[in-house]
């Protein structure tokens, strides 16, 4: 979706402000929000692409006016209700209507193993690549109202396949219908001038990780 999250290339946000000796979290609620998101995700009722899509659906004005973990709060509440782990009324009142749930809370003893899984998005399926390293491609001009990992600034731009990373879950369909649609994912190199025009440095480039379904032969 063409949401406020798709920030690449925008102007007007001011300087990048680096905080010296920044703590991992800035408040207790940020810590709890981070952990609630991961712990709720352990139930497997949604995938990471659905999580990202949930956060992207925060209204643009609100997204830009709030902090990072407020985006996470918005996203988690949305997923919990959509996937029927809690009801909208329970969220509103803060009290459980029914205590029994079919799922079991992950205990502290299982956290480490769950964080240390080695496979996530990479798949073993034998799908042939549509492109080879060095091949010229053009990113599709798509504007779906659903989730996509093809940023606006790269759409309809010409690039070169830098590297084939192998077969991965396709985020765009995985977020919308849980369809993994296994396909190759590539680093695609776009020159800065192709993306931003002749004022950009002739030497520089931006590499974007895109899937077969984002690309056509140029």
């Amino acid at each position: 979706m063409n949401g406020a999250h798709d920030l690449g290339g925008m102007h007007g946000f001011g300087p990048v402000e680096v905080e010296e000796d920044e703590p991992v979290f800035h408040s207790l609620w940020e810590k709890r929000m981070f952990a609630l998101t991961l712990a709720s995700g352990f139930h497997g009722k949604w995938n990471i692409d659905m999580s990202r899509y949930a956060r992207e659906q925060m209204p643009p004005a609100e997204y830009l006016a709030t902090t990072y973990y407020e985006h996470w709060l918005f996203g988690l509440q949305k997923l919990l209700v959509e996937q029927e782990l809690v009801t909208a009324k329970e969220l509103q009142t803060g009290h459980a209507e029914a205590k029994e749930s079919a799922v079991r809370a992950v205990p502290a003893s299982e956290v480490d193993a769950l964080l240390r899984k080695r496979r996530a998005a990479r798949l073993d399926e034998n799908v042939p690549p549509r492109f080879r390293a060095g091949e010229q491609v053009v990113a599709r001009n798509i504007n779906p109202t659903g989730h996509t990992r093809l940023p606006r600034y790269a759409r309809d731009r010409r690039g070169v396949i830098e590297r084939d990373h192998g077969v991965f879950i396709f985020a765009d369909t995985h977020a919308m219908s849980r369809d993994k649609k296994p396909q190759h994912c590539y680093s695609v190199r776009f020159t800065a001038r192709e993306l931003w025009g002749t004022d950009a440095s002739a030497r520089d480039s931006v590499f974007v990780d895109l899937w077969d379904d984002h690309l056509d032969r140029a």
Partner: protein
Amino acid sequence: MSNHDHAAEDDHEHDRPLSGPALRVKALESLLTEKGLVDPKALDALIDTYETKVGPRNGARVVARAWADPAYKERLLADASAAIAEFGFFGRQGEDMVVLENTPVLRNVVVCTLCSCYPWPVLGLPPVWYKSAPYRARAVIDPRGVLKELGTEVPDDVEVRVWDSTAELRYLVLPARPAGTEGWSEEQLAAIVTRDAMIGVAELTVSAPEQ
């Protein structure tokens, strides 16, 4: 996204009346606990992992070994996930790693314009500036301007490559080893590697040899 009000909140916020997101998150935690969906002790374990166990010191060890051991560096550039796993660093948000080597003529910079993708097992959780609108907006269109603002002026004859983490590949920059570190141990080398250098927005220098 507004900046954090660093002074206003701390761990003692529960001693004061809560408002805004703090109140809503507390309510959500009680609801999910009451429904048996989360165990507060598991939440503590998750927080502890990323506050005390996983962070940029992990990545610094990887970089130091790559500087000290050419065979390791070769493995790291060929199959970053496997080479990094030699240290026991792997898992969530670092399943498929790619290492980008800086050279005298090439500077790599990592960003996630769409959200906040970041290699957790080697760098921990991302700093606020990495997740902020200014960095996500500008890193791709004006990387030289961002680097200059952060203290690194890139000469015109040096190439800048920006890596937008739009899929599940996670990027770690292998900074150039600073002059004056010849003969240093891996431990000494690791101590000078910064998080920002491994994101690609800072260069490393040493003022005088450490003895």
